[in-house]
Each structure stands twice: as structure tokens, then as C-alpha cells.
């Protein structure tokens, strides 16, 4: 076979390899979580959410082009105190019946730095909570784990993408008891996201 015949095949293979991969963040192992913390006089309110889903498009050759949407089911927010959990879910606070999802849709990445399989960047996108959408920028860390899906889910081959993010939001920006209970619960909420998505090899 002449070189001229091989070249298109090589470029096609390269194009296929370089194409962005879609990672599904519905974790069958239930490890994915979002942790939240609010300061309060007696002790801080610490809880987590496990109902995470969404998809992220990631290109190892061009991490700056990463986009995607992560969804957290409001109902999955849990705190160890049952009364606090009831208040948190109630119409007075998150109103989970009316607003069942908390979402972050990443639209663009800036300050992208890649070192091996780890990429750090500032992701700008729309954060929607309590029915209010607000554009925010979040520092994120992406770790690409090639061929590691089978280590988590037997009989499935593919790659994993781990996303970590730590950021702070203000509940008043999302109309959650604006100007109220400031002496009882802080207005700032510390959020910490640690999630892994899978891209099954075709």
C-alpha cells in the first residue's frame, strides 16, 4: 500500500481519537457527591448530596473546549439532623418539591493549565438554584483516567473523568431567605464537588 493511501486513514484515526468524549456522570457506584457547609452559631451545618447526573464533553487534546451540565437532585440533599433536613427541603428554604434540580452548565473554560492527565481551569457557566440562574466562575480540576472504567465497573471498557471543584455561593443571590435568619445561618454556602464520569469505549 502506498503512503498516499495510508495518510487519509492515519488522519481519520487521529481525528477519531482527538474527538471530544462524552462522559456520563450518573455513577452506578454512588460515590459521586457534592458537599455543602453553612456556618451556624452552635455548629456548622454539614451535608451532602448524592443524586448527581449530567454529561460533560471533554477533549484530551483540547481541554479548553470542555462543556457540560451537572445536575444535582435537590431531594438528595442530606444532613444528619432530621429536623434540619426537613427545614432544608421545605418551601421556606430550598423548596425541593418546586425546584427539584440544582444545576451547573459550564459554557467556557479560562486559565487552562494541563500537566499530564490533570487539567486545572476556571469554568464559567450558569448555576441554577432555587429557580434562580446566575452566571458564576468556578475553579475546577479535571483528571482524565484512560482505560480505568473497567477497574470501577467490571465488563465495561472506557475512560473516566474526575471533576473536583470547591467554591462559595451566597444564598441571598438565589432568593433563599434573603435578609432573613442571618444570625442563625450564614448567607455563604461552601460547596465541594467530587464526581467521576464514565465514557464507555465503542
Amino acid at each position, binding site marked *: 500500500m502506498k503512503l498516499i493511501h495510508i495518510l487519509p486513514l492515519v488522519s481519520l484515526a487521529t481525528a477519531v481519537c482527538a474527538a471530544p468524549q462524552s462522559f456520563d456522570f450518573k455513577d452506578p*457506584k*454512588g*460515590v*459521586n*457527591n457534592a*458537599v455543602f457547609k453553612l456556618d451556624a452559631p*452552635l*455548629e456548622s451545618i*454539614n451535608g*451532602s448530596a*448524592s443524586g448527581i447526573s449530567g454529561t460533560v464533553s471533554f477533549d484530551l487534546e483540547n481541554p479548553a473546549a470542555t462543556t457540560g451540565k451537572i445536575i444535582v437532585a435537590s431531594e438528595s440533599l*442530606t444532613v*444528619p*439532623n*432530621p*429536623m*434540619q433536613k426537613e427545614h432544608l427541603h421545605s418551601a421556606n428554604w430550598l423548596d425541593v418539591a418546586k425546584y427539584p434540580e440544582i444545576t451547573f452548565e459550564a459554557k467556557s473554560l479560562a486559565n487552562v493549565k494541563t500537566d499530564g492527565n490533570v487539567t486545572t481551569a476556571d469554568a464559567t457557566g450558569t448555576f441554577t438554584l432555587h429557580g434562580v440562574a446566575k452566571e458564576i466562575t468556578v475553579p475546577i480540576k479535571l*483528571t482524565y*483516567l484512560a482505560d*480505568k472504567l473497567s*477497574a*470501577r465497573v467490571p465488563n465495561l471498557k472506557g475512560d*473516566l473523568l*474526575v471533576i473536583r471543584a470547591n467554591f462559595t455561593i451566597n444564598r441571598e443571590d438565589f432568593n433563599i431567605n434573603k435578609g432573613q435568619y442571618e444570625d442563625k445561618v450564614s448567607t455563604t454556602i461552601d460547596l465541594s464537588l*467530587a*464526581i*467521576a464520569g464514565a465514557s464507555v469505549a465503542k
Partner: protein
Amino acid sequence: MKKALQLFAVLVLLAAGAAWLATGANRGWTKTSVAVKTLDPVTGIDGISYEKKFLPGVDFLGAAFGGAALLAGASLFFRKPKTNQTNKKIPT
């Protein structure tokens, strides 16, 4: 009855205090579950699950104090049983 209520109030206080100390003297709110972290070795993510566990806090202690105070208060509505005393005259 008065004595029994007072004794019960003391018992409530002691039992609540002992339960609070035995479960680690939690100075926060009462919890009915505790977060347990499990490391996923592949991704390095700490998975969080909740284990059912009763962890009495300061509100539990407060409720116990309140209950004991009510019992002790209720005991005040009962009179001390009178002891039979006969007035014997001392012969002169």
C-alpha cells in the same frame, strides 16, 4: 408520690447525662445518622454514605433538663405525708 416524682426527675437527668457522655458528648445538635466516608481507590473520591446512629446533642440534654424540671415541679403539688404525732402531756 412527691418522693417518687423527685426520684424520677433525678433518674431522667442521670440517664440523659450518661447517654450523652457515652455517645461522645456531642456539643452540637442531635443527629440520627452519621456520615461515613469510603475512599474509591480508582478515582480517589471520598464517597459519603449515612449510617443510622443516634447521637444525642445539647438539644437532647436540654429536653432532658426540661423534663426533669417538669417532674420536679409537679412534685411540689403533692404534700409531704404527715407523720402521726401524738401530743403526749408530760406528767408534772
